[in-house]
């Protein structure tokens, strides 16, 4: 294994340095620098097209980047299948559109990774899966298919599916944006619970209530750059950058 140990402090679980990414000639990410400590909860917000989703998708290599470095839990993200798979096993991800596997039951969705990636016995994988289904409060749906569940239930299944892989880091890419208002709460409750247990989390979200409640840091991005970052109290009550002020006034005053 050609994993490279990070030279930075041991407590930094994610270290992003001078990360740049282009789509053709379009410069989507400009000099992103971000250090995340173990157990830290970070909320990333910003207008659409600002590069917030792209940033967290770089962390588990759903997107490639052209310049800069990225180290996750001591493993450097380089163009090496072993490194990529090691990082992906360590990082869970929840998507805006859930992306459950429609041809598998809920239980099979949850056990797929443990069985085929971690090579766990079926009974053990199923027992773990049922534990996580209990935690997201839908153990009774285990034998149904994703198409039979509501959006909120599907997203909770998606969170449970990631947790079954026992990740050290969880990425949330607008997890509540595709949900009806009354379903947002049930998903946020699960996320809050997870945050309280000390999971390292990076959430791209516009749920400012969630940010105030659990975030250690709020990051504001615009035009592919990190414009401002601060702890939530300061961020919401005393934003420094003009762009941040405009954004907050737009999403908070309605």
């Amino acid at each position: 294994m050609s994993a490279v140990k990070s030279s930075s402090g041991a407590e930094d679980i994610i270290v992003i340095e001078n990360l740049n990414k282009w789509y053709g000639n379009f410069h989507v990410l400009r000099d992103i620098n971000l250090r995340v400590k173990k157990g830290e909860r970070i909320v990333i917000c910003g207008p659409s097209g600002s590069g917030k989703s792209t940033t967290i998708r770089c962390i588990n290599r759903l997107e490639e980047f052209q310049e800069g470095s990225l180290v996750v839990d001591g493993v450097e993200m380089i163009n090496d299948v072993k490194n990529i798979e090691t990082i992906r096993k360590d990082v869970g991800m929840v998507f805006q559109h859930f992306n459950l596997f429609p041809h598998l039951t809920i239980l099979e969705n949850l056990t797929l990774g443990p069985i085929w990636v971690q090579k766990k016995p079926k009974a053990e994988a199923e027992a773990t899966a049922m534990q996580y289904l209990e935690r997201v409060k839908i153990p009774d749906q285990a034998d149904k298919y994703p198409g039979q569940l509501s959006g909120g239930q599907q997203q909770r299944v998606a969170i449970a599916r990631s947790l079954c892989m026992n990740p050290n880091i969880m990425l949330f890419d607008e997890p509540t944006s595709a949900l009806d208002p009354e379903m947002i709460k049930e998903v946020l409750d699960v996320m809050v619970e997870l945050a309280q247990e000390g999971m390292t989390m990076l959430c791209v979200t516009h749920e400012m209530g969630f940010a105030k409640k659990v975030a250690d840091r709020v990051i504001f991005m615009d035009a592919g750059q990190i414009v401002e970052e601060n702890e939530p109290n300061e961020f919401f009550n005393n934003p420094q950058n003009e762009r941040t002020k405009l954004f907050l006034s737009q999403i908070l005053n309605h």
Partner: protein
Amino acid sequence: MLKQKTLEQTKAAARRNKGGRSAAFYNNPEIRALGYQLLLVLGLGYFFYSVISNVLANMEATGIKTGFGFLTASAGYDVLMSLIPFEATDTYGRIFIVGFLNTILVSVIGIFFATVLGFIFGVAHFSHNWLIRKVAVLYVEIFRNIPLLLQVFFWYFAVLATLPSARQSLSLGEAIFLNVRGLYVPKMVGSDLFWVAEVALAVAIAGIFVLRRWAKRRQALTGQIFPVFYTSIAMVIGLPVAALLLTGLPFTVEYPELRGFNYFGGITIIPELMALAIALSVYTGSFIAEAVRAGVQSIPQGQTEAARSLGLSEKRIMSLIIVPQAMRVIVPLLNSEYQSLVKNSTLAAAIGYPDLFNVFVGTALNQTGQAIETIFMTIVVYFIVNMVISFLMNRLNNAVALVSR
């Protein structure tokens, strides 16, 4: 109060209308629909009655007897190729079976190679290699856009007919010969203990199912993944070879030999069969390639991303996520492609491959004049064959169908 009254009035009006108090009976939509259907049935009945009685009268006038008696009469002509022993003195009934088997043979070969070609070129469409991608596009665009009959002629007259004569045959290791009269390959002729190898092959094939079940159970119990695919291949090749070696190679190989102007011995594949099988495979393969492409493209990118984020390898994403979902789009399309291939195999008549249509509706009808019987029997065969294909593909479709709601 006012609102309620209006509602009552509306309901009363609706009741009056439904009762049809004012309408004439011939304006009632139900009676009208019934009337039209009655007229149609009467019209169709008269049409078929007049057609059939006309045909019967004509046949009587020309002295043709109706009925299936001709099936037991001697045919008096030979066929180019037969999978069962056949002589010119055999009956029309036997010709029917010979033609049927030849149709099944070319259909099975065609379906097999069309599926292989289709899946290879369909998946090649998604290759990261520019050249492979372009070759896949080229293949589909060329063979999908040329009439099949033209392609049959191309392979028969432009490719196979230009091969050298028997004396100048192309040969591979002095064992396989290709010339204008066909492809000649060696035949394995077993002696006394050859059955051991045959049993070994059967055991190996049965063993695959046992192995799969065992591997699945072991994985469920211990989590270890067993390489079932490669072990299966090793078993199917290895077991019969081992059996042959242990029993002291109990077979002789019959090589094709040049005698006079042609090769004899071994297995002969006539150019008519080759041309038709190649044309059907390549043509249908181009459609199947498009079906496969459609199937894979129908799966949202999010499925791959979710599987990647779980740490699954690209190979496992393909076999566990992409293929099972793509199949539900591909299978119904495959069904109609397979049925088309069977029906298109009647183009055999154009180059003289003795398929059912050619030997039965062609020659047998010509010689006996039993148009109704021969055409009816042939229709029934194609109908049944395609129903069987439909039945099997629908079973497969149900197996890959998606549950929602």
